[in-house]
């Protein structure tokens, strides 16, 4: 069972061997990346479909926790770990133009592999130390990728993104330092054991707030998402899609693990709810105001992540189910939208008449937009209704405010998405160039998935409920890491 570390180790190894390999043979180097990712995906799929699917842990290097570092493998971790190679392949640069610039090509592939490796590690990690390291690795890989175009604005966006992201890491590390000072451990399961006694006070909550904002930089959380419009306007659409769809979800996953295992039944969820509400309002209003397609869907992804944060702040399995559904739905939709944006960049006005030159792409856009807004038969409707029902069940003032905010932004969302759809279907003398066949194909693939999900919503929902129930089980998490939980509970805490 310990081959679960291979999806992390293999891309990492391949990333570092990419340069010498490209010197030896350009063809092999170009094949290496997709093959490694595919191998990781197959391994994870085997685990997902394994007959006995109880969660288990892997102690890296054979050192037992809490001092050793563990990978905690449950269905939630596997789900996100599988999404990583899948969507990295989805956004892989398949273009054949690498012939003249082998080194640049190898560099880009190495960064993509580094991103995939660290993202997979982040999904599986059960230790804050490791989470911090993987998070930083992911950040460094993404800095390289967003400056890929090499234009002046891209460099400015990169440097500002880098400074903000590094400051976020400082905040997260401060939170980790406070946690360590309070409990004397970095292992999530042990933190969960010690939390009721040590982390109820303001210091514990401050640590969560710092980590929420720190990891929130990648998750596009409200006060720290100023990098989003700059990066999405200048980075290649593939990279923007990867950051908006996949990477943001992994940052959310880290926060959710902390919330469920360490900060259950504290004020932490309220904090997340408030920031989530501010995030959707900010994101959707900015999207409504945006004048170009990449930034419009970039801001709308901020809004969607706000809903994800709100959903996960609902306590219990219901919140996890709702959050999971919204997160996965957004992952699918945003990936497809950004692959359409690959060629459809530029102002909304310039894209007038796009339906004439690319009817399939325009039709796909309408389908995706309808699901994003949440029009009944499509999966987007079910995800939103889950969140709204959960909020209504909680019923406190904050929850109802969030509910109102979601309904309000749904109307805004409908307004700007339909406005763009009518622009696409308007008559125009100079219709824009059609998106590339590969981009439309990729988006169509996701469109098919959306339709299948619409028809199969029951079994998929049951499966997700299963995943959520397992992930919400804090005692289960702890006893998976420590089969004899009580014995180690009180490791001496230094004063």
């Amino acid at each position: 069972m310990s081959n679960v570390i291979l999806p992390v180790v293999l891309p990492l190894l391949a990333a570092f061997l990419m340069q010498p390999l490209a010197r030896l043979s350009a063809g092999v180097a170009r094949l290496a990346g997709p093959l490694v990712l595919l191998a990781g995906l197959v391994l994870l799929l085997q685990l997902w479909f394994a007959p006995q699917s109880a969660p288990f842990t892997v102690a890296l290097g054979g050192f037992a926790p809490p001092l050793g570092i563990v990978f905690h493998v449950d269905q939630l971790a596997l789900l996100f770990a599988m999404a990583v190679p899948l969507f990295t392949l989805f956004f892989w640069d398949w273009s054949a133009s690498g012939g003249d610039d082998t080194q640049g090509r190898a560099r880009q592939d190495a960064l993509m592999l580094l991103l995939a490796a660290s993202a997979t590690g982040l999904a599986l990690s059960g230790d804050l130390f490791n989470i911090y390291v993987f998070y930083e690795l992911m950040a460094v890989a993404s800095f390289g990728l967003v400056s890929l175009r090499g234009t002046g604005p891209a460099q400015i966006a990169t440097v500002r993104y880098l400074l903000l992201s590094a400051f976020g890491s400082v905040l997260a590390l401060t939170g980790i330092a406070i946690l360590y000072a309070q409990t004397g451990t970095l292992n999530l399961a042990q933190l969960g054991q010690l939390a009721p006694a040590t982390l109820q006070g303001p210091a514990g909550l401050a640590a969560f707030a710092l980590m929420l904002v720190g990891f929130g930089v990648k998750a596009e959380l409200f006060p720290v998402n100023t990098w989003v419009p700059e990066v999405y306007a200048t980075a290649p659409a593939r990279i923007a899609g990867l950051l908006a769809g996949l990477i943001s979800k992994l940052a959310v996953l880290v926060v959710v693990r902390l919330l469920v295992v360490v900060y259950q039944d504290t004020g932490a969820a309220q904090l997340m709810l408030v920031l989530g509400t501010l995030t959707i309002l900010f994101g959707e209003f900015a999207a409504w105001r945006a004048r170009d397609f990449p930034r419009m869907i970039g801001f709308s992804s901020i809004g969607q992540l706000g809903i994800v944060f709100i959903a996960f702040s609902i306590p219990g399995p219901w919140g996890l189910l709702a959050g999971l559904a919204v997160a996965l739905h957004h992952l699918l939709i945003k990936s497809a939208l950004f692959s359409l944006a690959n060629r459809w960049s530029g102002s909304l006005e310039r894209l007038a008449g796009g339906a004439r030159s690319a009817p399939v792409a325009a039709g796909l856009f309408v389908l995706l937009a309808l699901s994003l807004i949440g029009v009944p038969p499509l999966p987007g409707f079910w995800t939103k209704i889950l969140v709204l029902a959960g909020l209504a069940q909680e019923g406190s003032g904050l929850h109802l405010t969030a509910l109102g905010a979601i309904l309000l932004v749904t109307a805004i969302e409908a307004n700007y998405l339909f406005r763009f759809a009518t622009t696409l279907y308007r008559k125009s003398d100079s219709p824009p160039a059609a998106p590339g066949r590969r981009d439309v194909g990729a988006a169509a693939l996701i469109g098919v998935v959306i339709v299948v999900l619409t028809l199969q919503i029951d079994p998929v929902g049951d499966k997700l409920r299963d995943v959520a129930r397992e992930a919400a089980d804090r005692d289960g998490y702890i006893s998976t890491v420590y089969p004899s939980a009580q014995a180690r509970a009180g490791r001496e805490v230094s004063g």
Partner: protein
Amino acid sequence: MIELDFVTILYCGAIGLLLIGAAGLVMCNNLFRMLLALVIAEAGVNLLLILAGYRGGATAPILGFGPAGAPMVDPVPQVLVLTAIVIGVGVQALAVAVMVRVYRAYGTLDVRELKTRFEFEVAAEQGIEPPGSTEGPAGGRPLSPVPPRPQHGEARP
């Protein structure tokens, strides 16, 4: 008692460094100064982590270093700090490298000026109206005064 006071002072120092760094990041208008502020904040958090594992009068956590059975400081935060320092240096080097490129392209590291030129270049590339002001709200305010637009090819010394 003196021991305790010393640690308290160090805690204050660590938190002070963090605050100085945060304030610098918010208030500076030069990219390089923002990076320096970041370095200060990182030093603060590293100190904080070391303090989290500190014990009065203990030796370094190396076997055979101090007398047998003597108390040692907690090694885990030290390992974490070591990692954090390495990562920090890497990220800072990367930041400086990108800043060199920005300076070569624009001849300035002033954030406000770079932001203005960024908005104009992106607007030109995307084919949208250039923003009247980066501070004010975008979009069509019908009666807004026309703000002076910065000159293009001109770089501030």
